[in-house]
């Protein structure tokens, strides 16, 4: 990396602090959720796990609601990016972004040009937007007012909570692995928010071409 490296601000502090709270709340939620599903411990220990699950669930809710309000314009941009598709996405999924080839065969295959998020990240984004909302809403229903919900709705909430919980947990394994493996993105998200210009141009050419502007100082 040369000294006069140019940088792009990829994740401003608002996104980073939201993501930090997301990590701090969702990972304990995922772990306690899996434990609550398999019930490996005695009643008292399971009770403790349930309490941790509820407290971290409340933290996750506060994080999500706060970001929805404070970072509303960023939420809308995230929705637009996550739901923008083109033929490139079909091509991307047909080779899974070149990742299996890279990890399993050590081969580098040409990947169609991507925007800020690649097709896999967009799918993850959609799962987080829809699944996360459903998890939060059903979680509050199940914890706070199962007795008020009409007959059958509590059971429906339970099923939805279970299904989307598993979807997000399994997707998260991929996200965390790639989030650490793509180390420049990791540093951008966990430290300073910046990504080297050249790297972004290679990984997200459409983003750099259409969305990135030079700052006039």
């Amino acid at each position, binding site marked *: 990396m040369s000294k006069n490296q140019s*940088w*792009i*601000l990829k994740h401003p502090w608002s996104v980073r602090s939201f993501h930090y709270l997301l990590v701090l709340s969702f990972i304990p939620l995922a772990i306690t959720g899996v434990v609550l599903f398999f019930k490996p411990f005695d009643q008292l220990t399971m009770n403790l796990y349930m309490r941790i699950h509820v407290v971290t669930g409340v933290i996750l809710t506060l994080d999500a609601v706060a970001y929805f309000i404070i970072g509303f314009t960023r939420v809308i941009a995230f*929705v637009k990016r996550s739901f923008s598709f083109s033929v490139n996405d079909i091509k991307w999924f047909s080779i899974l972004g070149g990742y299996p080839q890279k990890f399993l065969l050590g081969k580098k295959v040409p990947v169609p040009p991507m925007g800020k998020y690649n097709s896999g990240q967009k799918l993850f984004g959609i799962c987080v937007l829809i699944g996360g909302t459903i998890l939060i809403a059903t979680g509050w229903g199940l914890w706070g007012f199962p007795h008020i919900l009409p*007959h059958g709705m509590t059971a429906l909430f339970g099923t939805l909570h279970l299904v989307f919980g598993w979807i997000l947990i399994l997707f998260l394994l991929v996200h965390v692995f790639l989030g650490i493996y793509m180390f420049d993105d990791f540093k951008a998200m966990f*430290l300073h928010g910046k990504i080297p210009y050249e790297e972004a141009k290679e990984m997200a050419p459409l983003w750099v071409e259409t969305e990135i502007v030079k*700052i006039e100082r």
Partner: protein
Amino acid sequence: MKEERYQYEESPSYVSRREFIAISGIVIAILALPAVWIRSAVVKRNSYIRARLNGLYKDDAGSKVRVSHGNSGVAKLYKDFAGHPLSEVSEELFHTQSYVNRTRI
């Protein structure tokens, strides 16, 4: 870390005004519709409960004997056999023994 040291950023006009209004409208509608639906389901469920409650009161109002201590059968049972409520015999016969864990039923 010094965040100021970057030369490029995202253009704020990535989402146009029109798109912003459209997308936020859709997002808020999608959040609001289930909320409205659940609310009306809860209200409807409460109306069932209220109707049932009214039915029970109506049954009561029409019955000759409305309270258990007015029930001549129960009175006879205590007089001839169990003595009085909470007596030793009634304790043994009518009271459940202990809490039963039903989570696995």
